[in-house]
């Protein structure tokens, strides 16, 4: 199953065996709590006491940390430099030669970095431990229209094929000695003629692909069945419901906290 999906990583962990909706609820909770709770440090608490232990249990701690780091670090550096130094009218906190980090700016940067961390981290944790087709199956069982799950799964599957085609085009261009270099206009002149056939040829296939799913009853009226079954432990629906309640609670709490302060 190595060829399945971009992000999903198979591991022998009990987290991987959880129902997709349970994991969706967990990461949804992190996302909501991280984005709504006030204070600079709340997101860091969520990461340290929630996300990292879960990643460890999923046997993906290093994977998650390195992937998240690669995405988040440039943001953090930018946000600390720009908002920390260029905060207008702030109280100087640390001075390095002519430049100074302002207290308000640094606080803003800490809060932003925390939000970036929790958003990227919980999204990645979810995607690393959940197979998209199983997620769609679980959502279909809850009434997600089959056309939506078709959309999402086939998009994820078509994208790598398309990228491969785009790369073939690029390589072919290079091997013909047509370097994509020079001024912006020269580069654009080199790339756009490559893009056009890629787009047009893929669009022409659409008609036959529509017929192909029609012929297999994509629009057949009546209830559909499913070839795969997703296992779910008895306590999981309870946890899911609890997490939904916790999300509502967190939302109310953050509104109250913001009103109070």
């Amino acid at each position, binding site marked *: 199953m190595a060829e399945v999906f971009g992000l999903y990583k198979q591991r022998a962990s009990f987290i991987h065996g959880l129902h997709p909706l349970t994991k969706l609820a967990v990461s949804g909770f992190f996302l909501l709590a991280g984005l709504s709770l006030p204070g600079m440090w709340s997101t860091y608490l969520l990461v340290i006491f929630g996300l990292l232990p879960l990643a460890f249990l999923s046997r993906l701690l290093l994977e998650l940390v390195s992937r998240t780091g690669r995405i988040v670090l440039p943001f953090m550096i930018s946000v600390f430099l720009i908002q920390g130094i260029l905060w207008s009218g702030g109280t100087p906190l640390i001075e390095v030669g002519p430049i100074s980090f302002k207290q308000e700016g640094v606080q803003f940067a800490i809060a932003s970095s925390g939000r970036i961390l929790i958003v990227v981290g919980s999204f990645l944790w979810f995607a690393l431990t959940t197979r998209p087709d199983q997620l769609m199956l679980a959502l279909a069982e809850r009434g997600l229209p089959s056309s939506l799950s078709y959309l999402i799964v086939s998009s994820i599957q078509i994208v790598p094929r398309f990228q491969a085609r785009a790369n073939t085009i690029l390589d072919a261009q290079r091997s013909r000695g047509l370097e994509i270099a020079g001024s912006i206009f020269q580069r654009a002149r080199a790339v756009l003629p490559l893009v056009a056939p890629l787009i047009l040829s893929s669009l022409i296939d659409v008609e036959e692909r*529509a017929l192909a799913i029609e012929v297999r009853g994509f629009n057949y009226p009546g209830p559909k069945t499913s*070839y795969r079954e997703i296992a779910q432990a008895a306590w999981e629906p309870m946890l899911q419901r609890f997490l939904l309640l916790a999300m509502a609670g967190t939302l109310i709490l953050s509104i109250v906290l913001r009103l109070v302060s």
Partner: protein
Amino acid sequence: MISLQGVTYSYPGTSSPALRDLSLEIPRGQFCAVIGPNGAGKTTLAYILAGFIPHFYHGSLQGEVNVEGKNAATMPQRELLRLVGLILQNPFNQISGTKVTVQDEIAFGLENLGIPREEMVARVAAAMELVGVSELAERSPLGLSGGQMQRVAIASVLVMQPAILVLDEPTSQLDPVGSREVFQAVREMASSGQMTVIMIEHKVEWVAAFADRAIALVDGALLADGEPRHVLAIDTVWRAGVGQTRYTLAARRLQELGKWQDGKRLPVTLDEATLTFKAFQKRR
């Protein structure tokens, strides 16, 4: 049982018809091959049988199409869907893209029909066995070779057990061994009386060996209809650009060299060729 009467069809926005005054009857359990050069209207015929014309492609359709005694144009599409299975020309487009493994891909049609899971599992396994893709069950359908995809495409329609199976160039990506296997499987299904098969094909050698009947289309019109070995020996069919078996080609070469007895029928199959060429040798 399929019957077409005086069917003429033009795609929307075109002036010349893709099919002209076509009349045909195909009895239940027959293995009928459709041959003809590119643009002859073979795929159009397949679309008519599957109801895509007139339901998906509008245009102008005249004449009558009956499938199992009912008018295909007025029959509810879901009913037609259960009767007629269509395997499209391009296997890359036939893969739904919404499934992650070959067995899920094959089960897709059954899920849509609402078949219970236990039955689905049995039917998927049987279909994979029949077209020889059992060992690919856990592979990603989009990562297969063209030939493997073609087999999966066939299995994914076969598994729906249609009464009529229409295959549009189903061996285009297969090597000779694979092509032969597909012809053989189709032959068996037709012979067992389970299915009526209409197969659009360019590989006339196999058509001659396996099909009950060949229909030659040229420019949307019926040019010849009959036993493959008769149809494939007809001069006008050859001139229209339909492929020939190597035996017929050998005979045609002799004809060109003036060494063929006038009016003598050209051989199409190996058996015929053996007989004719033996007689030919004796006369010399």
